[in-house]
């Protein structure tokens, strides 16, 4: 795949063949060499074939080979004449990250960290088919979750209404349509609310290790040595099944409307078509399930902290900093060819990163920009950044979402053979509990790129600015 360097951290894939726009990839020179080893650049070019795409098919520096869209892919399609693609959102609809500040300092937590991790593991079910975090919901309650998102959880006593302002879209995508959801997603999602699932999902206790942007850290209530909680998960089986069902629907639509795509996983439907509208309505239900899921998990984690440390909720001081989506499609207004227009933003493994002053971020954050949460692997560190004005003009207000794997699970398993990964992590100051040893081996820190490299590309490009770095001290995984 031919790429030309635009500047130190930006590369362009020229428009060729059926591409409607060029591709643009944020990466350092060293990263680009590695990126070229798999098919992810081809996938950036494939996305550029989608009808109605504007400006560029973009990829963030955590780009890696996905299916259809690359992971780290960003694409905007015109409201008028554009399409929506379930593959541009992914199976785990509204997979995202939540950052919670606490009123606790590391020295209050570290002496009890092993017990705390065990308690979190008991309160928040993890692993394949994990279920029953809360009593099984009736179908009508599930429909309520799908329509009301995090607000449903707050009304059921999970957290407070003040949290809602600190969630992207206030924790609910409007005009979700439960009628567009078939029978199977309801069955898959029936008893999974409040669970993490498996794979790369996690709940992490972190310590604020470094502050880079003091005014922003002050606004977010973060100080060195403070304890934070990061929650990474999505819409569980409910969302996976909605995506799967609608890939079939949109594959038929692709044929029906005569759309040519280079990969069936890019199946899409016109935004104003019956099929496109139905997917949007169903996808919003899954997004709302995910918002509710993270809201419930935060509350379960708070219970674990209070019980284990023998403290009150007030003393635990759980304070939601922000909750962001990184697998989503939404209508947003952006500048295209000098004019503001409404576009359908697809972010597949990418985070919204609105700059200061944007009306869609909490009023108290408008002076510094939207928090952008970028978790790393479980052994090193995670970052909090903020969006910039540059992100609004160059990336449709988008940034990276994580470290990105550079080693397959198979290779990670082979490299961890004969090693005691739990002890290795303990020696690095990380207590871990997981459903099985296989997950710990597959998710070993060196299976991932160094997230600092990814974050630094976006920082140097002026798309997001680093605010703080967190060092993990306790992790639960599937």
């Amino acid at each position: 795949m031919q790429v030309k360097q635009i500047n130190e951290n930006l590369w362009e894939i020229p428009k060729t063949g059926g591409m409607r726009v060029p591709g643009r990839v944020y990466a350092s020179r060293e990263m680009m060499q590695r990126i070229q080893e798999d098919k992810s650049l081809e996938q950036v070019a494939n996305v550029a074939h989608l009808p109605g795409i504007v400006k560029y098919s973009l990829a963030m520096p955590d780009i890696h080979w996905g299916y259809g869209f690359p992971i780290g892919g960003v694409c905007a399609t015109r409201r008028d004449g554009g399409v929506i693609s379930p593959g541009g959102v992914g199976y785990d609809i509204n997979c995202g990250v939540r950052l919670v500040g606490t009123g606790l300092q590391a020295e209050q937590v570290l002496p009890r960290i092993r017990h705390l991790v065990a308690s979190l593991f008991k309160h928040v079910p993890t692993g394949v088919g994990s279920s029953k975090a809360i009593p099984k919901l009736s179908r009508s309650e599930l429909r309520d979750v799908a329509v009301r998102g995090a607000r449903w959880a707050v009304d059921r006593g999970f957290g407070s209404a003040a949290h809602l302002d600190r969630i992207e879209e206030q924790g609910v995508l409007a005009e979700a349509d439960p009628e567009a959801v078939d029978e199977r997603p309801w069955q898959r999602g029936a008893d999974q609310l409040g669970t993490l699932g498996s794979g790369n999902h996690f709940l992490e206790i972190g310590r604020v290790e470094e502050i880079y942007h003091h005014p922003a850290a002050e606004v977010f209530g973060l100080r060195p040595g403070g304890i934070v909680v990061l929650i990474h998960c999505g819409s569980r089986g409910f969302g996976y099944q909605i995506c799967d069902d609608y890939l079939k629907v949109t594959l038929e639509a692709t044929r029906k409307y005569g759309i040519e795509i280079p990969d069936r996983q890019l199946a899409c439907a016109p935004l104003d078509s019956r099929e496109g509208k139905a997917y949007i309505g169903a996808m919003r239900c899954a997004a709302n399930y995910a918002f509710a899921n993270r809201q419930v998990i935060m509350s379960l984690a708070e219970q674990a902290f209070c019980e284990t440390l023998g403290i009150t909720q007030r003393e635990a001081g759980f304070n939601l900093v922000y909750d962001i989506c990184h697998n989503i499609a939404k209508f947003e207004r952006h500048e295209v060819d000098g004019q503001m227009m409404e576009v359908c933003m697809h972010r597949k493994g990418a985070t919204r990163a609105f700059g200061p002053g944007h009306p869609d971020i909490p009023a108290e954050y408008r002076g510094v920009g939207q928090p952008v949460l970028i978790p790393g692997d479980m052994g090193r560190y995670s970052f909090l950044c903020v969006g910039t004005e540059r992100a609004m003009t160059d990336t449709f207000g988008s940034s990276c979402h994580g470290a990105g794997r550079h080693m397959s699970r198979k290779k990670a398993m082979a490299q961890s053979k004969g090693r005691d990964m739990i002890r290795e992590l303990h020696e690095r100051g990380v207590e871990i509990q997981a459903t099985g040893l296989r997950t710990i081996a597959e998710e070993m820190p060196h299976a991932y790129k160094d997230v600092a490299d990814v974050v630094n590309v976006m920082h140097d490009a002026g798309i997001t600015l680093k605010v703080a770095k967190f060092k993990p001290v306790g992790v639960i995984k599937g």
Partner: protein
Amino acid sequence: MLTREMQPEFEELDHTADLAMRVRGATLDLLFRHAAGGMMQLMTGPLPGISAQTERTVDIGAEALDALLRDWLSELIFLVAAERLVPVSFVLERIDAHGLRARVGVVPLTDTIARDATEIKAVTWHGLRVDRDEEGFVAEVVFDT
């Protein structure tokens, strides 16, 4: 009582972010049984000595072989995800290019099995292929994990 499926003939392919496999079968029946056994092995690891306790029937149609393979594997994922049943043996009563009917032997998804399992969310359309060659059929499948 059904018995544990034969050792599936499949090869795990290297994929950075997800799981992928190549599977072969001299006949369509064998291809689909190996594909099912291979996917389940990727999901749960080998389950030696486990015999099916009960069975489910899968009856599906599709307009092409690759779509049929995807739908077949998706049915098995649904059994695990929604009914907490682990498919361990597969009898294809009928299969052609347009559909299949199968009896799937299952065991409950116990904590022991779940502990070392990897979640497979779905069977993707990306790189999905079923081809004929001189030895029969060969298929490639990429899973989202």
